[in-house]
């Protein structure tokens, strides 16, 4: 911010922060009504760190771990989707609520409109397959490859998981190596392990009769 260039103006900035916050909220609401808000975002705290959530008017577009650098993620969205991006938490209220329920162990499925425009071709096919892996269950990279009809595309399945724009919701954490090792994860291996143990606890504690 440029400071006033003459000391006589020093006194005028005293209430700017409050006013800016109020005007920003008003802008976000008006931009949404005028259909100018191409991407709305907010952050939420979670047991696996602060998550960035971004949505178009079609649905949830992106979830990003801190590891991915939130500023960088927003810059990429600006280039690949639209620069008309504002911090506008309201569009993401439902996502935030369902994520909180999931991390509390109270939710096994997400019921949300998703916008898959950041994934193309085979990667998108893989993501569509991943959402069919149930809570508390895992598959191997080769099983997922076979399920997509390309049994030799194991490495490509790994790439699709590594570039999953919607981790947690599209459960790439439920895909493991054939030897039982974790493989990789966009949010880091400790996060993958945390999600799996969250889901394992839920599975054994509350629904022992299932399957």
């Amino acid at each position, binding site marked *: 911010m440029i400071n006033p260039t*003459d000391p006589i103006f020093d*006194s005028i900035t005293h209430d*700017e922060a409050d006013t800016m916050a109020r005007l*920003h909220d008003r802008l976000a609401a*008006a931009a949404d009504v005028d259909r100018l808000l191409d991407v709305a975002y907010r952050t939420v705290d979670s047991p696996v760190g602060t998550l960035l959530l971004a949505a178009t008017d079609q649905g949830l577009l992106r979830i990003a771990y801190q590891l991915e650098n939130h500023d960088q993620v*927003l810059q990429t969205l*600006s280039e690949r989707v639209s620069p*008309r991006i*504002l911090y506008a938490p309201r569009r993401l209220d439902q996502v935030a609520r369902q994520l909180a329920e999931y991390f509390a162990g109270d939710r096994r499925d997400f019921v949300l409109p998703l916008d898959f425009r950041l994934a193309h071709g085979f990667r998108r096919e893989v993501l569509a397959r991943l959402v069919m892996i149930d809570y508390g269950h895992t598959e191997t990279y080769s099983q997922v490859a076979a399920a997509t009809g390309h049994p030799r595309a194991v490495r490509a399945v790994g790439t699709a998981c590594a570039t999953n724009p919607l981790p947690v919701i599209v459960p790439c954490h439920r895909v493991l190596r054939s030897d039982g090792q974790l493989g990789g994860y966009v949010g880091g291996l400790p996060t993958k392990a945390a999600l799996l143990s969250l889901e394992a606890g839920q599975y054994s504690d509350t629904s022992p009769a299932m399957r």
Partner: protein
Amino acid sequence: MKRPFEEIVAQHGPTVLRVCRAVLARPDADDAWSETFLAAMRAYSDLADGANIEAWLVTIAHHKAIDSLRAQSRRAVPVANIDETSSNASAWEPPENDLWAALRALPTKQRQAVAYHHLAGLPYAEVATIIGGSTDAARRAAYDGVRTLRRRYRDPQQLTSREGIHS
């Protein structure tokens, strides 16, 4: 390579607010700010890369403020000062700083030159592009404006102390 619009609002929002307040009283200044950023957001995708964003925003704000002043003068005039007499429990507003009122009392060109140069930080050449006339004329208008403000506040130090504002 366009930055997210959120960054533009965060970086330039306060400057544009000062420009709006230098020309308009509340709540018109706030409305002009909102209209400026809504219009800017609409046009942002088409803005040339490398454009001077601050000058672009101040230019939009300049036009929105002029629109607002024109609308004011068209409005039916002598209704009592509703804002000050009504005691509805709307959002709390900080008290208006006298300096804003003094700025708005300056002749138009001086007020604009002071706002765009001293508050928005634009060089005089940019100021001249926005308000018309030569760079020298813009510099002179800003100089005259600040001199008038100084005369009205014999003790500018008093203005710069927070206690002085709020008590």
